[in-house]
């Protein structure tokens, strides 16, 4: 499934500035705790003076789901694998796992982040790919 269209709002503007550069930004507090991108205050200590820091983009599978491909004249489309993943920094993130065979999915499987756009006028969307599908 290609990523869908999405536009920014006030809260997501900096985050999407990051994805446009291939960066997944996470808010960090002065203590160095990383919070979820949508956090208004530090997930760990409640601090409100947060600054955006690029994440590594490395993550592991917490869980996954598979949406069947749509039937069309060309036959059944390929399924979409969706995952909730735990970023190395701690927060979870939800997206599709591109180019994944559902049979490859397992808890703890390593993921790397990529970015895809629905079209040039829409924001870049983080997606995952299996980091080492052959190992």
């Amino acid at each position: 499934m290609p990523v869908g269209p999405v536009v920014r709002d006030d809260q997501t503007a900096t985050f999407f500035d990051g994805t446009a550069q291939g960066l997944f930004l996470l808010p960090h507090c002065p203590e160095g705790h990383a919070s979820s991108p949508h956090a208004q205050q530090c997930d760990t200590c409640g601090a409100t003076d947060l600054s955006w820091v690029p994440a590594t983009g490395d993550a592991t599978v917490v869980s996954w789901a598979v949406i069947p491909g749509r039937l069309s004249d060309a036959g059944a489309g390929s399924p979409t694998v969706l995952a909730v993943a735990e970023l190395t920094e701690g927060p979870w993130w939800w997206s599709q796992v591109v180019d994944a065979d559902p049979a490859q999915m397992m808890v703890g499987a390593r993921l790397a982040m990529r970015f895809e756009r629905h079209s040039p006028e829409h924001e870049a969307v983080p997606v995952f790919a299996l980091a080492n599908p052959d190992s």
Partner: protein
Amino acid sequence: MTTTSAAHAGPRSFAAGRRPVVVGLGITDLGKVYGRTAAQFAGDAVRLAAADAGLRLSDIDGLLVSAGVTNGVDLSLQRHLGLSDLNLLSEMQAFGSTAGQMVQYASMAVATGTAEVVACVFADNPLKENRGAGAAYGGAAQMPSGWMGLLGASGILGANPMYALAARRHMNAYGTTSEQLGHIAVAQREWAQLNPLAQMRTPMTLEDHQASRIIADPFHLFDCCLVSNGGIAVIVTTAERAGHLAQPAVHVHGWGQSHPGYFLRRSDDFGLVSGAVQSGPAAFNMAALAIEDVDVVELYDCYTFTALISLEDYGFCEKGEGGPFAASGVLGPNGKLPVNTGGGQLSSYYLWGMTPLSEGIIQARGHGGERQAPDHDVVLVSGNGGVLDHHATLILSPNPT
């Protein structure tokens, strides 16, 4: 029923005459019912509930309204019902836990004298003629924006994927299987066959469940609830007033809420534990009852998995044992534990938290007909909203103590 001399913050702390009782239940036509707005369904439901109770509309002095996905019910319902000089009026939204919560706030209102007769109503009309049920909960048509827009753009559209992610996590952690989830769907379909209100009454086998198309793996179609149009209202008043009304009183002995506020980061138990683990004991404590006292269980079952994790978290089986428990034959009309005796949201009708609440009232009254549980002294009603985010529990009984 067990009693203790311990002090409780709930109904027992109020004078016997002011303790809360459900006296009215109004259910409109449900399912593929077209040509009426959610507001009309809501008005009809309240009128039906008042008639059921033997009350005049003008007896109502409190109104709590709750809208579904079409957002079609609001405070203007007061005027549609011709209600003047209300002592209580509000719109509530805690998704699938709202119905249970409305009864809780109505109970507090009548017990404290804030209001005497409170109607609680939910109505929705997501189904449109010539449009599939899948479109009903498919999301907004406007350009997606912000964090929610990003979630959708990433492929996480609607509730199906999020609940599927939760269910898959439970499967990985505890070995829960699709077949075990299927046993819940099959058992509830057996109940639905005994319920004239149920939309889905054709027999279903485990093979039918396994053969139904995949919606969001691990969920098959028959793991997912229906989509329904309609409205349901209940009326809460005091025990003193209930004694003069038309229907058998259904006493509200205990309640609890839980809103886990999942951190959604490392070490979170999303998909493994639901809010029922907190709202259940709170409700039992208030009622001075224990899970062993429960005769009938009406759970929120937007998915088979929601019912399964609720069974675990209330303590009907051990954590992680919900799958084997469901597959053991304990559910269904021939099982030992009457769960979702009307067919639940999977097979009867999907009016959010009003589905388990309405069936719980019917069972507590002893009005279940062919599906009536023989013992119904203690009925547990459970609501679940968001993605396991909001829980509301009620303990209902035909007995005053």
